[in-house]
C-alpha cells in the first residue's frame, strides 16, 4: 500500500478530478505555469476550502481526523508569507502543533536562534519564510505539502532548504509534495516530477523522463538553450489533448 492516496481530488473551476498516489520516501516536485493548478492540488491534498475528494495517509482519512491529530499526518505551507499578529517565532511554530523538543530541533536546523528575540513583524521576508517553514516541518508530519518554499530565500538557503526537505523524506514513512518554479532545482531534487497545466496533470514521471519530453515546451512555452532556458522560438499552441503523457 502506498503512503498517501489522494482520491477524486477536485476544486471547482481550478482543479479537474485527479487521483494521486504517493510512495513513502519520495519527494514529488510540482511545476506548472501560474494558474495551472499547483496550489489547488496542494489544497485538495490538504483538505482546504471547497476542495473535494479525500486524502488517505496510511489508510487514515485526513479530513476526518481531529485538529490535534492533523499536524502529525500532513502540514501545508502556503505561498503567502503574510502573518496576522506579531508573535514570537517559537510561539508561532508551536501553533502548528509541534512539541517543545521538535521546536528546538527545527529552530536549530533552520538557524532561528539568532532571530528569536524579535517578533515576526520585525523579521526580513527570508527570515519569516524560515520561521513559517519550521512551523510546517516541526510537527514531523507523514506528508509535507510545501507551496514555493524557496521563494524569498537567498541562494544558499534555497539549497539548504531543499537539502533539509530531501533529508526529511529520506526517513521512512514520509513524503513531500513541493510546488516550485525553478525547473532545474525541481529536476535535481525530485524523485518524481508532476507538470500541471490548466487544472490537470499534464505529465507525471521521473524528472529526467519528464524534462526530456516535449511537455515543458508545450506547457511553459520555453525550451533549453545550452545551460539555460529561453522563450520558445515559435509561438506554442498547446495541443488539444493536454493530458499527453511523456
Amino acid at each position, binding site marked *: 500500500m502506498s503512503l498517501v492516496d489522494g482520491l477524486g481530488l477536485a476544486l471547482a473551476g481550478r482543479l479537474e478530478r485527479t487521483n494521486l498516489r504517493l510512495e513513502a520516501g519520495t519527494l514529488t516536485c510540482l511545476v506548472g505555469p501560474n494558474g495551472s493548478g499547483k496550489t489547488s492540488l496542494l489544497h485538495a491534498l490538504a483538505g482546504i476550502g471547497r476542495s473535494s475528494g479525500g486524502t488517505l495517509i496510511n489508510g487514515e482519512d485526513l479530513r476526518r481526523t481531529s485538529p490535534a491529530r492533523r*499536524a502529525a499526518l500532513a502540514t501545508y505551507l502556503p505561498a503567502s508569507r503574510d502573518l496576522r499578529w506579531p508573535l514570537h517565532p517559537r510561539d508561532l511554530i508551536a501553533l502548528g502543533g509541534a512539541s517543545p523538543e521538535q521546536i528546538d530541533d527545527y529552530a536549530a536546523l533552520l538557524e532561528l536562534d539568532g532571530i528569536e528575540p524579535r517578533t515576526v513583524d520585525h523579521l526580513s521576508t527570508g527570515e519569516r519564510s524560515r520561521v513559517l517553514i519550521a512551523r510546517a516541518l516541526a510537527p514531523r508530519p507523514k506528508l509535507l505539502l510545501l507551496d514555493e518554499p524557496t521563494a524569498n530565500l537567498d541562494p544558499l538557503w534555497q539549497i539548504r532548504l531543499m537539502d533539509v526537505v530531501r533529508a526529511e523524506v529520506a526517513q521512512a514513512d514520509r513524503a513531500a509534495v513541493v510546488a516550485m518554479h525553478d525547473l532545474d532545482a525541481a529536476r535535481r531534487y525530485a524523485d518524481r516530477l508532476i507538470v500541471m497545466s490548466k487544472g490537470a496533470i499534464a505529465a507525471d514521471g521521473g524528472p529526467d523522463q519528464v524534462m526530456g519530453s516535449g511537455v515543458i515546451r508545450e506547457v511553459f512555452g520555453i525550451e533549453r538553450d545550452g545551460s539555460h532556458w529561453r522563450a520558445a522560438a515559435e509561438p506554442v499552441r498547446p495541443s488539444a489533448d493536454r493530458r499527453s503523457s511523456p
Partner: protein
Amino acid sequence: MRHGVILSVGVLALLGFAASLLLPWSSLQALLAADRDLGLTFLLELRLPRAALALVYGAMLGSAGAAIQALFGNPLASPDLTGTTSGAALGAVVTAYIIGAASSFAMAIGAVAGALASLLLLIGLAGRRAETATLLLAGLAISALAGALTTLALALAPSPFAFYDAYSWLMGSLIDRSLPQLGFAAVPAAVAILWLARLAGPLDRLALGEEVAESLGHDLGRLRLQIICLSALGVGACVAICGAIGFIGLVAPIFARRLTGGHAGRAILPAAAIGALLLILADLASRFAPLGRTLPIGVVTALVGAPFFLWLVARMRWGMAR
C-alpha cells in the same frame, strides 16, 4: 508572570465592582444608618444592577472585540468600529418605538437582530479578511446608516417624546436599571463570553492564515458564524439594556494581547477582564464628575477611547501595528 498579570486584572475588576457597589460610601452609610432595610434595598436594587452591568457589559465588549479582531486579523475591528453596536441600537429603537414592543426582552431581541444584520453586512461589504481601510470604511458606512435610520425611526415614532426618551439611553447609561434588566443583559453575555473563550484555540491558529488553519482541520465557516452570532447575542443584549458604549471593545483586546504574547484567541478572557475593569473605572469616573451631575458613561469612554484610537491609527500609519 503573564498569568499573574492576567489574574491581577481579574482581581482588580472585582475590586472595582466592590468599590462600585459601595461608593460613594457616605450616601450608602447615611441610608444604612437611617433605615437598614432601605439602605439594603438601595444597595441591591440600585447600586448592584449598575455595578454588575458595568462588569458584564465591559467584559462582553472586551471579549467580543478580541474575538472579532482575531477573526478579521485586524486590531481595529471592534464592535463599535464595525457598526455592531449602532446596528444593535437601531434594532432596539425600531422594536421599542416603531413596533411598539418596549419591554426589555423585546428590545433585546431587536438589538440582537440589528447587531447580527450589521455584522453580516460588514462581512458582505468588507470581505472575510478585510484590510484596515476597507474594514473601517465599511464599518463607518454601517454606523452612519444605522445612526441615520435610528434618528429616522425616532422622528417617525408615534410618541412625541421618543427623541428625549431615547437620548440618554443612546449615549450609553447604566443608571436606573432593574435586576430583571440586569438578567436580560447578563445571561446572554455570560453565555457568549464563555462560548467565545472556547474558540480561543482555532482563533489563535488563524494567526497562521486561513489556509493553514483549515489544513489543521478547523472549519472556518463554522468558526466565523459562531463568532458573529455570539458577538451579536452578547453585545446586542447589553446594548438593549444600556445603550451603545464605544471604544472598550477596541482598547481592551489590544491590552489583552500584550499579556498573551500576541496570541489573539487566548486574549479573549483577559480582554473580558480588562473590558470589565475599564467600564467599571469609567462608571466610577462618571459618578465622581466634578460637575455635580452624572455624565453619560458612553461620553466618558469616548473621551478616553477616541484619543487612544487616534494614537493607534498613527502607530499603524508608521507600521508598528500590534
